[in-house]
């Protein structure tokens, strides 16, 4: 075919041009496909990352779970000398500190969001909102060093003795707030975590409060409701799912927070009835002991703690994202 065409110069030129264009288009098609493939590969890489984290943690914790069985999760013992390990104390500490943090941060965070969306003068909304978001930008090690050298001594001298004295003779509270005042401990860690998750709760609550259609608010004001009543009976019910999503996101943060807690928790592997006593959390145990851990079982037990932490935070964060996604869908 090409031979016969070659005999006619004009036609040959045209086919050559067409061929050139076809080749060019082909090249573009290939490079287009290649680019698409690269982006797809990178996206799948993100999935691979999560898969890698799970696989490596499961593989790393296998020796510990083989040695201690499922009882690892419920055993309180943590003895590097006899190589007996159990996760109960760190798990309890993680849950206790996060609970304290959420009890404080959730109401205050929601109230700040209430202030920012309903009360604050327009001109101050941005600067105040930004100042609170700066709290989220401060690295956690800063909270740690500040907590250890400033906040803990302050609590030890001025707050804890007073708390202990107040609750001394009230049955259950006397155990929860049993002395002596160490300064560092579960409560101090919980308070610092509260400050750290406050901006997360505030930011998401503010965003969902802002999403309430103004007509709804105006209609309620038109009925003669007070600002608080508008907030309580219109804004809050309307945005409940979003607020809970934000709270869960903050909780995920609190559960996994490492450095700030490591500084002030006291790193004591025992469960105490008093929140003033030193304790430990999963992340603090790992940060404190991992590089010093000798022996496979010790290392593996710490990785197993990491796996437990990852599973807990994964569930909490997944629930948070699903709730926020549901809200997004409802809006459309």
């Amino acid at each position: 075919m090409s031979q016969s065409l070659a005999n006619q110069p004009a036609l040959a030129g045209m086919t050559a041009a067409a061929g050139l264009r076809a080749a060019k288009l082909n090249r573009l098609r290939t490079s287009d496909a290649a680019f698409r493939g690269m982006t797809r590969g990178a996206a799948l890489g993100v999935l691979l990352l999560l898969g890698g984290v799970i696989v490596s943690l499961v593989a790393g914790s296998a020796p510990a779970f083989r040695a201690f069985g499922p009882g690892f999760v419920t055993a309180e013992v943590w003895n590097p000398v006899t190589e007996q390990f159990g996760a109960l104390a760190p798990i309890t500490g993680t849950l206790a500190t996060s609970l304290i943090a959420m009890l404080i941060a959730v109401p205050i965070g929601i109230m700040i969001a209430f202030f920012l969306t309903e009360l604050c003068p327009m001109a101050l909304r941005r600067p105040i909102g930004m100042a609170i978001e700066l709290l989220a930008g401060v690295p956690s090690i800063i909270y740690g060093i500040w907590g250890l050298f400033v906040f803990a001594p302050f609590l030890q001298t001025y707050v804890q003795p007073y708390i202990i004295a107040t609750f001394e003779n009230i049955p259950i509270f006397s155990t929860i707030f049993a002395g002596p005042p160490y300064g560092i401990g579960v409560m101090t860690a919980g308070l610092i975590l509260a400050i750290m998750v406050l901006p997360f709760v505030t930011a998401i609550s503010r965003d969902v409060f802002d999403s309430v259609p103004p007509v709804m608010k105006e209609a309620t004001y038109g009925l003669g409701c007070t600002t608080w009543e508008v907030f309580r009976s219109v804004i809050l019910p309307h945005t409940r799912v979003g607020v809970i999503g934000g709270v869960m996101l903050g909780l995920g943060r609190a559960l996994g927070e490492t450095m700030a807690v490591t500084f002030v928790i006291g790193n004591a592997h025992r469960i105490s009835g008093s929140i003033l006593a030193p304790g430990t959390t999963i992340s603090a145990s790992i940060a404190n002991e991992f590089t010093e851990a000798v022996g496979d079982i010790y290392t593996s037990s710490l990785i197993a703690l990491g796996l437990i932490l990852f599973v807990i935070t994964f569930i909490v964060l997944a629930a948070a994202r699903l709730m926020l996604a549901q809200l997004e869908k409802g809006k459309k």
Partner: protein
Amino acid sequence: MSALPNPAIYRSRFRRNRIAVTLGYASAVFGVGWIAIILAILVYKGIGGLSLDVFTQMTPPPGSAGGLLNAIAGSAIMTVLAVLIGTPVGVLAGTYLSEFGKHDRIAAIVRFVNDILLSAPSVVVGLFVYEIMVAPMGHFSGYAGAVALAVIVIPVVVRTTEDMLNLVPDTMREAAASIGLPRSHMIIHIAYRAARAGIVTGILLAIARVSGETAPLLFTALNNQFWSMNMNAPMPSLPVVIFQFALSPYAEWQKLAWTGALIITVTVLGLSILARTLTHRR
């Protein structure tokens, strides 16, 4: 008009409102108060140690004076490497989510997983990189530290890239398609250019995020008392040095820790404010 139905109810409603409003104001003062207190104490404790020596001398042995040069250099090198690894992956994955897979199932899963990674505990990232790099190689290294930081960079960049590309109006894409531009050219020459400021913001936010990270470096890069530019050996970093120095009993080390803390905070907050002004939004 008759008189108000029940003055007692009326009064109690307003009293409740006043209490709530007061609590709202108090909460805002509480929140802003903490950031003010933390920054004030940081400046008060850290500024005294701030001198040229901090930036020109090595971390000292216990009981003598010195600086933080090797720690700052180590942090900078690992952060740069982490951004070099994490940015291309993050930008490409974000591009897929926004440009190609907007409505497909894989993209939905990737988006979900990325959001989880975005707030996953960073100490777990450290364990992961320990397992895949430090354990097989048999020693701690700057490379492992950089990879751990890259794992934290990726989800931040993915998220902002997707968000920013979503802001590019579709009419621009259609205009490009109508003159016969292939899709990859449209994305690279039109969409990326339109979203450039936003993507840069994402990278800045990622840098801000990793420059304060300590937990993932503890068991990947470890630490190093000396000037070490060998990425294949343990490498010092500012956050880890702060951690070690702050918990030490030596006054000089604690003072350096405060100075380092001030430097990190100024850097991180400066970067996030810069990132914010770059996009002008929020």
